């Protein structure tokens, strides 16, 4: 297991370093997060998923809160 941790840790560190370099180079060469978000939103409807998840989370939290109050 210790050897596994070392191997996986090494791979993860290398990938994170590589990703960070890519992100850095992208920002330095004129990359824009707003453009990226709008492109992904059009492709995957991210805002729709976000609203759906927000509603589900709020409803779940309200239900839990009500249950706790009734038990109290």
């Amino acid at each position, binding site marked *: *297991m210790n050897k*596994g*941790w070392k191997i*996986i840790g090494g*791979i*993860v560190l290398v*990938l*994170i370093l*590589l*990703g*960070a*370099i*890519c*992100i*850095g*180079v*992208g*920002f330095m*060469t*004129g*990359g*824009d*997060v707003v*453009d*990226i978000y709008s*492109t*992904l939103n*059009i*492709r*995957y409807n991210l805002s729709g998923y976000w609203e759906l998840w927000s509603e589900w989370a709020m409803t779940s939290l309200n239900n839990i809160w009500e249950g706790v109050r009734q038990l109290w």
Partner: protein
Amino acid sequence: MYTQSEVNDINKQRFLPELGKLLTFMVEQDRQTALAMYSRLFDDAEDEQKLMDLLVSPTRQAVVIARTYDAKARKQQLESGSPAADETPAFVLAIDKIYQEVAPEHVNRPAEEIEPAALINPLINQFSLFSDDAHPIDDSEYVPFKIEADAVSIEEPVEALPIEPETEEEAPLPEEPAPEAEPAAPEQPVQELPAEEERAVPAEPEAVPVPPVEVEAVPAQAPEAVPVQVPEAVPVQAPEAVPAPEEPTVYAPAPVELSFIPETRRKPRVFLLILYVLFAVPLTAVCILLLLIPTVLALTLAVGVIIGGSFLFMSAFSGFPKLADILIVLGTSVVVLALGLLLLWLFVWFVGGVIGGLIRGVVNLGRKWCYKEVAA
């Protein structure tokens, strides 16, 4: 009340079997050497408390040897017969160091006093047993295992082992050979005759017989460097002033027992075992259920993150007009995939390491508490 010698024997009988078990990682030849040297430590140590303080425990000594011993390399050296195999191994020096502390008066003792325990393995003599730079052994005085022809009366021929020296020059010749001595006497590689005791042997018709050589303790390789010429019968006229001892002279101490490891088997303590199972199984089950929560959570997160990262990675190559945006998306996807890999490994670690380790620990604890070792 035990004498010092008896106390040493008791400690030796406890210490050596335990050490023998712990040294199984060594090459058998070296293991026997180490055990013989430790045996001699107990025999020669005058301050048993000091010896035990130095040794601490068999485990400690096994660790000391293990630190200086590379079994694989040593085996290769011995098998290939390389010159390095003739050098003194580090473990011999380590034991030698202890020996010099507990029995400094024995370090430079004459060769005739070396016990058969040291002869079990020729390596011991080969390594100039228990000698160091501070107490060098003079080779001119070092006549290993030579039986003084004029000091003892041996009426019966010594049983010779089928061992012969490689060359005639290696055989140490007595300075003044007795005229009756036959030149082609049988050779005996392992025999100890302390000089003091030899001279105390009376010249009686019933000459003290030479004790038989421990053939089982002698390794297959004959110690070629220590051939001894023994005359068949050398009558000696002892001075009358020397009183005859009542007890027969012991030429050699008891041979070192090499079969140290007793056969044991594990016997369950039934009541304790039932009690342990009754408590351990439910407790372990609860612990495993609790550990399953983070395990499943790690798996879920890992799957989600890896799927998201994969989508991000694939989307980087379609829909983005600028290379800079592609680089940012690619970098982000790589970081997300790395986190997903870490979460996946966390799941594997929970299953194989934590939960598996918990089960193994409970089983081992049960073995330790609920079983006892008894002689087979």
